[in-house]
């Protein structure tokens, strides 16, 4: 698979969120406002790229070599958790506005399946380092794209006269389903 196809596949066809169901909690949690969605997307891109490549290196050069493959889960989560700590400290110091905007969601990236999922997928699909880098970046971009598009729709849905039991999360899930359906448009393009 060429890199172009890989990119299209990561963003659209195998969208991490809409096709692989990873990262739903932040997806629903940070999509009520466009600004938050944009901030969260950027944070996820940043963390995913770093985590995706770092875990690939650790897996390939440490875990495999020392026959510690079974420690994959624990190793990955520790890497991701420390990374997020680092990003948090960095943002707090250098971009306080963004830090304030993302609020509680930064630590939650730690427990975001999308980041962990990308790291695991990179290994499962036996990507090379470069492929893992590209895939991490564009999976995250796909996540961000879906999140931002979703926020656009959701800003409107939040103002609509949705029946009571469907309000908020329920209708958001239905809307997410429709976005996922729309993304079927790209099926077979790679």
């Amino acid at each position, binding site marked *: 698979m060429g890199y172009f196809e890989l990119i299209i596949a990561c963003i659209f066809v195998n969208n991490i969120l809409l096709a692989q169901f990873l990262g739903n909690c932040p997806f629903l949690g940070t999509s009520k406002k466009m600004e938050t969605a944009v901030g969260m997307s950027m944070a996820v891109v940043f963390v995913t790229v770093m985590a995706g490549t770092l875990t690939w290196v650790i897996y390939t050069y440490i875990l495999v070599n020392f026959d510690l493959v079974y420690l994959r889960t624990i190793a990955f989560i520790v890497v991701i958790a420390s990374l997020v700590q680092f990003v948090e400290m960095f943002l707090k110091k250098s971009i306080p506005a963004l830090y304030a905007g993302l609020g509680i969601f930064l630590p939650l990236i730690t427990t975001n399946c999308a980041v962990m999922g990308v790291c695991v997928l990179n290994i499962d699909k036996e990507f090379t380092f470069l492929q893992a880098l590209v895939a991490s970046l564009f999976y995250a971009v796909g996540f961000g794209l879906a999140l931002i598009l979703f926020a656009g729709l959701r800003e*409107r849905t939040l103002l*609509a*006269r949705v029946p009571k039991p469907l309000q908020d999360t329920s209708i958001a899930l239905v809307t997410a389903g429709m976005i996922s359906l729309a993304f079927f448009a790209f099926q077979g393009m790679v």
Partner: protein
Amino acid sequence: MIKRSFFGLVKPKLQYEIIDEAQAEPVSIKTSKQIMLYIDQSVDPSLENAGENAGNVLLKTGDQVKTGQKIAMTDDAADYLLSSQSGQISKISTFVGIMGKNYTSVTIDVDGESSQNVDEGFKNVCQAPSLENAREFLTGLPGQPDFNVFFDSEKPVKAIVVLGVDDDLLSTTNQYFVKNNIIAIKTGVDLLCKITGISNAILIVPQHLEQVAGSSGAVVKTVDSEYPSAHPELIMRHILASEDGESKSKSGIAFFSAEAVCAIGAAYNTGKLFLEKLVTFVSKDGNKQLVSVPIGTPLQDILNEFNETLNDGDRVILGGPMQGISVFSADYPVLPDTDTIIIQDKNQITERSDIACINCGECVRVCPANIQVNQLIRFLEAGQYEEAADQNDLFSCIECGFCSYVCESRIPVFQHIKLAKHTLESMKAAEESNA
């Protein structure tokens, strides 16, 4: 009522009324029994302790008033009206108008001696025209001239704009004065320039009156015939090309209607206050007639003149079809700024609905202020007024009413906008008074 045209490729147009050669002369209507004056302030005269700074109560029931006498509730009140008739005060009451505004209504039983019983207050000062005595005596003239703008030292007035156009549809009042009374306008403009010391006077007229307007001595500018181009906000932006970002009150422009300018000129020239309002009366069958009627005359007197009967469910509108207000009784009087009176039959009224916005976008296309009304209305219906102001330009609205006119869901958009602005402004006022 102007319906949607069959073809709708371009955005809908509403044309202003155009006064033409064949226009019938105004019918003069007399007051039958009483007049009513609505003063923009509430003071309950029965209460002695109306507040420390409320001044002394001036009027009480049974007082005699003369023609042209200032009717104010207290001696230091800024708001007053001028009685167009002489007679005796028979009733003073307060009431709450739209958006929670307080009014005092003063009823005067006319004594039929109006031409003799004239108040001399203005005559004594008219030899020495000044801004102070204009403010003191002339605010109640037809067209309701506002002199307060000249007293705001923070925003000096740079230009005087005379509106020879009518802001709302169906009205021809100001055009009438430009067409038939341009000399009086010249007199008024000269006087205003003199007392204010401002030389920059501009007369705004519709295109067909440009020639006539030339003899006014003011700079003449024209506006086109499509609603709402004669709206003062738009005139300021498009015709006067003032800097963007400033609204009428901030920009140092004093607006006067042509009618008011005529009345000011006449007042200083003759020493007499002219208190007849020129009104376009629109009957149920759509006939339009200019009438001249003393300020304060109840609408019923005009209806009687035209043999118009009201039934349950009909609508009586003071002001134009786009911006006026509908009243609950035909006893309502003609006010100094009433340009139009419209009577609508029950079956001419389009019901408003509670259906949600369908996003048809008609409102967006007609909005002269470029507001995303389709988005705005969603916030307003949800009661999110602050978001509406922050994200959807609530305060850019110039209140032309066009969006409601075209709304396919028949949402009372305009009313929502006014309510939202009012709510936010009163919240802000409350905050400031608390701070």
